[in-house]
């Protein structure tokens, strides 16, 4: 029971982190039609900046400044990188973001090296928030959960209620009209891109010290974020939320329970004492399967419902 509760908790947490990345990615996609392959790289930058800043002035200022810097870098990338490339079409944009991901990884390795940096959980938070049936739940994890839920709520209020949010929504579908009404759509694109990157940066700040801050963190997480927005439906924030939570919880459950898949195979008449390739299958557990599960769902989703859960257009 406690294992179930804790893995759901951790799953929610991982899911909310994924959502922070996926929401920015999907916002950028629906606004500009650009699938930003470098999105997770901004997540990584958030973590590294937070590591650097927290070394000087502590974790809390890092939580504020690291995402800000990432946002400004993102805005600059849109203005001086993507926009000039835009006139050559979507493929050129895609290649640009693809290249950017490698550039960022190289730069990170040049500055901080190839091995993980010691970006740690702040001392004051490295305690148990509560203990339940002998299991500790760390205060930092609780903070992560609170922060990500708060950001999620703020994002929804911003998009749905503020004037800027409404202008962004309108520019998603009718950029020409929005600009004929006197709004600078170019600037809106630039700052939305920056804002999406900043969201990824926040995820990096609060997730980097739990998941590990290293040059491969972008490549590890990036594909899963894509899975999230495809399953949720390109361009849909609600879809991204549900898909992110689903994948987060599923990942944690399959690892915590580590069930053997043998009973399923037994249904097909497979004996436990087989040899060769089948031996590996018999020994397979859900934990072993966890890393591929998201991609399995991706493939299933693409076959059964190519537009994703809440998407309005096919991938």
């Amino acid at each position, binding site marked *: 029971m406690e294992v179930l509760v804790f893995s759901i908790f951790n799953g929610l947490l991982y899911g909310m982190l994924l959502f922070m990345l996926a929401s920015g990615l999907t916002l950028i996609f629906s606004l500009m039609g650009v699938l930003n392959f470098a999105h997770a790289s901004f997540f990584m930058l958030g973590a590294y900046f937070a590591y650097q800043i927290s070394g000087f002035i502590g974790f809390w200022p890092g939580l504020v400044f690291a995402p800000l810097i990432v946002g400004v870098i993102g805005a600059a990338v849109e203005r001086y990188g993507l926009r000039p490339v835009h006139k050559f079409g979507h493929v050129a944009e895609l290649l640009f973001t693809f290249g950017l991901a490698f550039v960022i990884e190289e730069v990170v390795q040049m500055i901080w090296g190839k091995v993980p940096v010691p970006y740690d959980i702040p001392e004051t938070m490295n305690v148990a928030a509560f203990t339940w049936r002998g299991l500790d739940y760390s205060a930092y994890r609780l903070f992560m959960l609170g922060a990500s839920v708060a950001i999620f709520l703020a994002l929804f209020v911003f998009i749905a209620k503020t004037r800027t949010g409404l202008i962004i929504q309108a520019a998603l579908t009718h950029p*020409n009209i929005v600009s*004929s009404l006197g*709004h600078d759509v*170019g600037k809106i694109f630039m700052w939305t891109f920056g804002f999406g990157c900043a969201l990824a940066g926040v995820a990096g700040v609060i997730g980097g010290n739990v998941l590990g801050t290293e040059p491969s963190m972008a490549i590890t997480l990036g594909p899963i974020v894509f899975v999230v927005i495809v399953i949720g439906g390109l361009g849909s924030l609600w879809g991204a939320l549900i898909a992110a939570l689903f994948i987060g919880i599923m990942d944690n459950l399959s690892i915590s329970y580590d069930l053997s898949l043998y009973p399923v195979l037994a249904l097909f008449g497979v004996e436990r004492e087989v040899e060769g390739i089948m031996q590996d299958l018999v020994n397979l557990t859900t934990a072993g399967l966890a890393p591929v599960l998201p991609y399995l769902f991706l493939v299933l989703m693409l076959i059964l419902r190519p537009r994703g859960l809440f998407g309005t257009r096919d991938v």
Partner: protein
Amino acid sequence: MLKVTDLHAYYGKSHILQGVNLTVHGGEIVSLLGRNGVGRSTTIKAIMGEVEPHGSIKFKDQEIAGMPSHEIARLGLGYVSENRDIFPTLTLRQNLLLGQKIARQTGRWSIDDMFDLFPALRERADTQGGVLSGGEQQMLTMCRTLIGDPDLIMIDEPTEGLAPQLVETVAGLLSEMARRGLSILLVEQKLTIALKISARVYVMGRGVVVFEGTPDELRDNEQVRKEWLEV
């Protein structure tokens, strides 16, 4: 107020506007008439910067050819497209709010003004734009542009496909705009309203202006009407 000289525009290789000249003075209602496909919409899109203009476009004595649309709008030039493009997922009130160029912009028109002029819109203020009727959407697009307080408004076929009673409503709004001191450049196909309210009319034929004069002069000129207007 607006002076267009030798305006050319292209869609790919096709040369659509081939030297359009027209002028709108302050406080004047001017109509741009012509058959389908002669380039009336393209003319105002080029003025607005949505289609790349070649030639000179002076608005309030400032050259605006080549400026981005939002800057042209901010100079006080309003545009209502022929597509009745409301923002379908936003409510009617939110659509109107986005007409303001800055938050809480005030000017000749307030949102309450709009609701007083069109009580039907007030009733539907919190309805999603996408489910409004065609007539309501037409009124909404015009009101949305007016909220931004333009000094000159260009309106593309506001009466197309509307029932006669709604055509009257549109005509009423146009008169109200003129009363509040706006200049209007109206693109129309039907002559009825245009001849009634315009000070001057232009007739376009295949990318150029083929007639310029007062409504009376157009009424008397059977040759122009036969060749360029009647089907």
